[in-house]
């Protein structure tokens, strides 16, 4: 039984960014399902696109006020002079942890079964420092920055996540045999935190071996904690083995704010074809919004939404192309609404 505090049923404002490409389609699905459930949330919608030089201050203000945001992908122009808005948001709001939940959905056979992995990735430093320069013509350097502060807080978040979700094992992914100082510091921080959680198993795995293990024995993994780049790769690999971008939920969270989005390839906005035919898979973002409802402490709304989505996937007649079906986003959305308890 969930015993709310008086007033907990008051609707909460959530910042909504439809974004680029398939973003408006899948955020549209979320909006419709929330409405159908009469979920206690309402949206403040902002038009943001990847080709803007910066995230408009009004959007940042809105998230600061509401503390919670749900968004579609923002296209990152390749080769342009601008930096990724997805990254700007993470840095601006200090959303230091990225979480992607990669698990088999019942009724959806994939190459691997029994996969239930949560990838927790450091989101603010490492290879994404943005510090690069040309030393002499033809020689460029990029700085990977690892700090004790950021390593410790991500390790703490990972163990806390495991503890609160009754997870049994945390695996730290690294390349400390080569990057002895940088990844060494990351590991040292993980070990320190691990020692405070004797009930949770801790192990370490070198990133190349980890990739091999993921495609051969993914069942062995539970929670994984990683520096920035490895997490990006591990999460995409883990998502791929159980069905892909279109169904893996996730989000970014820091001390004060949380932004929910498609878990893997959050910056991926699909291709023109799926946008034109309106056939993006809304499952990932719907599952992310169930995560959001739980985060807002509306557990029964979260459960209802998740149950309905899983039912539709399992039942199998309403699936988008990435899951081998032909349905449109709207058809899947309608099916989810029809399956709500």
């Amino acid at each position, binding site marked *: 039984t969930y015993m709310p505090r008086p007033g907990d049923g008051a609707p909460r404002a959530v910042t909504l960014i439809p974004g680029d490409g398939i973003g408006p389609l899948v955020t549209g699905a979320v909006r419709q399902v929330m409405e159908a459930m009469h979920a206690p949330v309402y949206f403040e919608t902002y038009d943001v696109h990847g080709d803007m030089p910066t995230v408009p201050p009004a959007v940042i203000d809105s998230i600061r006020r509401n503390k919670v945001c749900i968004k579609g992908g923002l296209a*990152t122009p*390749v*080769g342009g002079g601008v930096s*990724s808005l997805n*990254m700007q948001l993470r840095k601006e709001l200090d959303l230091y942890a990225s979480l992607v939940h990669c698990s088999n959905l019942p009724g959806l056979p994939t*190459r*691997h079964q029994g996969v239930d992995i949560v990838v927790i990735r450091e989101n603010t430093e490492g*290879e*994404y420092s*943005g510090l*690069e*320069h*040309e030393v002499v*013509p*033809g*020689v*460029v*350097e*990029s*700085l*990977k*920055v*690892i*700090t*004790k*502060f950021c390593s410790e807080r991500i390790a703490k978040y990972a163990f806390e996540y495991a503890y609160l979700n009754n997870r049994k094992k945390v695996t730290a992914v690294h*390349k400390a045999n*080569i*990057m*002895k*100082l*940088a990844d*060494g*510091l990351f590991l040292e921080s993980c070990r320190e935190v691990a020692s405070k959680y004797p009930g949770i198993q801790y192990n370490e795995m070198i*990133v*190349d*071996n980890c*990739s*091999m*293990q*993921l*495609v*051969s024995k993914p069942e062995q993994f539970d929670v994984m904690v990683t520096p920035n*780049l490895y997490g*990006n*790769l591990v*999460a*995409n*690999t883990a*998502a*791929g*083995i159980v069905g*892909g*971008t279109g169904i893996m939920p996730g989000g970014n969270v820091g001390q004060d704010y949380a932004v929910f989005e498609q878990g*893997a*390839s959050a*910056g*991926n906005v699909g291709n023109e074809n799926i946008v034109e035919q309106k056939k993006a898979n809304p499952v990932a973002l719907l599952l992310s919004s169930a995560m959001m409802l739980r985060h807002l402490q509306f557990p029964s709304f979260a459960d209802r939404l998740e149950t309905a989505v899983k039912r539709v996937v399992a039942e199998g007649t309403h699936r988008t192309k990435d899951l081998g079906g032909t349905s449109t986003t709207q058809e899947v959305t309608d099916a989810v609404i029809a399956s709500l308890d």
Partner: protein
Amino acid sequence: VAPFSTESGETIRATLFPGDGIGPEIAESVKQVFNVAGVPIEWEEHYVGTEVDPRTESFLTWESLESVRRNKVGLKGPMATPIGKGHRSLNLTLRKELGLYANVRPCNSLPGYKTRYDDVNLVTIRENTEGEYSGLEHQVVRGVVESLKIITRQASLRVAEYAFHYAKANGRERVSAIHKANIMRKTDGLFLKCCREVAAKYPEIQYEEVIIDNCCMTLVKNPGLFDVLVMPNLYGDIISDLCAGLIGGLGLTPSCNIGEGGICLAEAVHGSAPDIAGKNLANPTALMLSAVMMLRHLQFNDKADRIHNAILQTIAEGKYRTADLGGKASTSEFTNAVCEHI
């Protein structure tokens, strides 16, 4: 990177490092198979020393390195670097001294050996000398460390050149450059720029660029979409191991290092496997397939095909498989079966 050519009938000298752990056993298998197939190769065997050679600062002797430089071709078993200070890792010594700048790893599904992925037929080519493996790291202040990734035009161009040369020489259609230039604009940007320059010289080979996270996902969903992949050091390390996982693991994946002046040093991807060393349990397939790569480099294509087919047939039949593939055969039983098929 001119291909090594030879008059038929001539005997080629090649360097052989049996290496440590299971190395000597699987090297023996290769020698046996080469004998049966009548490969005209005379091995110069070199062993890792018991003392550091001051000329190389490593347990590898100067003579060993000279042997590879002279022969330009060699086969290497796994080497485990003894722990201790004052010497370089064996693999690092080889890479630096021989300028081994590209690591080539073909990954093919083995017919008859079922994995979850049956349509893998790709080659990863990894830049092997710079990038994230520069070894340049320092502590800025307590609790803050930096690690330098270095990308140079020279190293990027030569690995790209090799990738396109390889694609053309091996009848491959497409080269994909794997990168993260949306985040690392300058370093990976330079790598891409070099790939594009080389691509322009090979209009008959398709060229594409794939962001590494997308590459990971596509590889596990539909590996059949890739042909030849070329990438900086760290990405190559990760992607090549991922691909090895797709086809069944370390016991099966060959590789070959390309060095300055056209050196080709083939080696299995796996380590010395101390847990099974000396027990006649190791799977010699990876080293045999590496030896096959060496033969192809020497343009002994007939011999290479015969040995390659014999290995594939033996595994496909399934009667003699080593333990890592779920079988009961010993190293020598498997090797004998391969010899039977030649």
